[in-house]
């Protein structure tokens, strides 16, 4: 059944929901002087499917917080007395400040924005040769060199940890059940909690080593700097590792065969991470139900936290939301798995 449904689901998902096209990008506008030109441009931007104007700010000091708090990905700063300058000198400037954490997206939406501005320019001129020039200046924040790796390093971290911790842990525990050695371990003075710990520990260590390796490679080979506090990164990662281990434990309580454990970890965990966590396809562009689904995927919160810390250089206080959610998920998972772990064979 699954084999027949899979292609259908995938076509629908990829066709409609998962797209790398950048739509509904949140924009904030800084308009020192409100006039007809700025209003017109802002209307056009807002009307476009690609943008959503979410805030109007009045001072440059408000720009940083917008990016920091991820309220918008693009800030358009109009020159003061925009319309006046345009009419009098024939030239005016608009600064487009983009969050280039995802360089591909940033390139896309700055391009769209520039196009919209150009179309306004065209509007003004009419059929005559265009005397007006509105010059967009693009500034890419956080990732000035537009390194693609910025985007996928957090994604890779999220995926690898999940793979190692969840899948391998669940397989290891289920293997004991399949081989029959679990029976002997149960009929022994060893407390079940030790059985669990002994299975989890090697993968915990492995994940820590992997984390270190990925960090080293990212910084020195891919030149992705760690802009924020490394300690925060470690704390958040440890939390995520812990969560993945408990997911693995949960999967192991659900099945008695290694194959099933692998399938569940693969389909139930890896696939959502790849598709819905935002590591490849931007979450903002997904239909709302999928966005809710994405909220359940722990990797999404982890990746978002890592991006904030690593690339935006923010501290732990900015990712409190993610930390809280990840902690909550961990506690729930651990609680359920411990309860479900059977001290008997059935």
């Amino acid at each position, binding site marked *: 059944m699954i084999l027949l449904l899979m292609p259908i689901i995938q076509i629908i998902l990829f066709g409609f929901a998962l797209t790398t096209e950048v739509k509904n990008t949140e924009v904030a506008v800084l308009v020192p002087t409100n006039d007809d030109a700025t209003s017109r441009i802002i209307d056009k931007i807002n009307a476009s499917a690609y943008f959503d104007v979410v805030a109007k700010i009045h001072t440059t000091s408000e720009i940083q917080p917008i990016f920091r708090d991820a309220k918008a990905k693009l800030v358009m700063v109009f020159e003061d007395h925009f319309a006046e300058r345009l009419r009098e000198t024939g030239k005016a400037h608009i600064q487009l400040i983009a969050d280039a954490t995802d360089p591909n997206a940033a390139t896309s939406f700055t391009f769209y924005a520039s196009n919209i501005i150009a179309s306004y320019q065209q509007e003004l001129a009419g059929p005559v040769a265009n005397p007006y020039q509105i010059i967009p200046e693009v500034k890419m924040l956080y990732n000035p060199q537009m390194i693609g790796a910025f985007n996928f390093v957090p994604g890779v971290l999220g995926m690898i940890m999940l793979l190692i911790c969840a899948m391998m842990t669940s397989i290891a525990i289920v293997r004991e059940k399949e*081989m029959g050695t679990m029976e002997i371990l149960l*009929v022994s003075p060893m407390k079940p909690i030790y059985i669990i710990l002994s299975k989890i520990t090697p993968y915990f260590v492995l994940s820590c080593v992997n984390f270190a390796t990925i960090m080293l490679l990212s910084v020195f080979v891919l030149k992705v700097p760690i802009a924020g506090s490394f300690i925060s990164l470690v704390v958040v990662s440890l939390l995520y590792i812990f969560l993945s281990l408990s997911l693995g434990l949960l999967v192991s309580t659900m099945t008695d065969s290694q194959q099933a454990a692998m399938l569940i970890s693969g389909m139930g965990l890896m696939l959502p991470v790849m598709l819905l966590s935002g590591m490849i396809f931007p979450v903002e562009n997904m239909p709302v139900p999928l966005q809710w689904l994405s909220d359940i995927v722990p990797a999404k919160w982890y990746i978002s936290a890592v991006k904030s810390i690593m690339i935006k250089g923010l501290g732990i206080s900015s990712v409190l939301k993610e930390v809280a959610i990840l902690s909550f998920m961990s506690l729930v998972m651990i609680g359920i798995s411990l309860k479900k772990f059977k001290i008997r064979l059935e």
Partner: protein
Amino acid sequence: MYAIEVKNISKNYYSEKSGKFAGIGVNPLLLEESTNNNFSNEGISFDVEKGEIFGIIGPDGAGKTTLFRILTTLILADSGNASVDGFDVVKDYKEIRKRVGYMPGRFSLYQDLTVEENLNFFATVFNTTIEENYELIKDIYQQIEPFKKRRAGKLSGGMKQKLALSCALIHKPSVLFLDEPTTGVDPVSRKEFWGMLKKLKDQGITILVSTPYMDEATLCDRIALIQNGQFLKIDTPKNIISQYKNKLWAVQSDTMYKLLTDLRANELTKNCFAFGDKHHLSIDNEQLTIDDLKEIIEKSGHTNVVITEIEPTIEDCFMQLSQV
């Protein structure tokens, strides 16, 4: 106090595979083909004395493993209660798990650890060391000691058995549960294994062992014959044999297959089964003598007919009891 005490235990579970109910001590009407309608609904009960070798003898699917799992606290019975060394299998399972040795049906050892590593592992799990109880396993372990650096997965069936037994004994258990330890192993290794069990009994260890091989029954102190989840009989092998109804004759001729069909067709005989190079014939007719029968058979064209009265084997008893 008995080493093992079982009272009215029954366990009923639905087998996905067969689409039927299976279990032990359960109303046979719920189980697969049961020909015996005299079974009680009260579940299974029996006791094992300290230092006894108690055998559970019966074919696959009879319920042996279920019983073992209940006694080793791995599954819960539906009704009844049981105790091992005075500890209840449900309430005091932690205590039982500290003091019993268990060898489950398959060779449940770590295939990719060496012989030595496996032994060390289990010793540690039971909070002891190999040296502490070495005397107990010496006889057995010495046979595999030359291979102690070899991975457990690469041993032969007989060797794996010996290793599994050593691991089960390493903490000097008071009761040893062996679930089909000799299945699939050649007759010579089987014999050796039972020799080892006898020596363990001398050390005061109670042994509950299950096997489908009827000839191993005589090596136990007492046995329980089990079929379709019910005990057919519980007694010493000797007593069971002496309680066999009917006379039993061993019959031979030069044409064994024809002999089988002829004997069965004869109205004067009760049951006839092949038993290797002789057929076992059960007679409930008081008047029929061996000479009479010999004449009848020879008349049908058999040559070299030999008939002797024999003592029944456990297998004969099992077959009779399971047929009633």
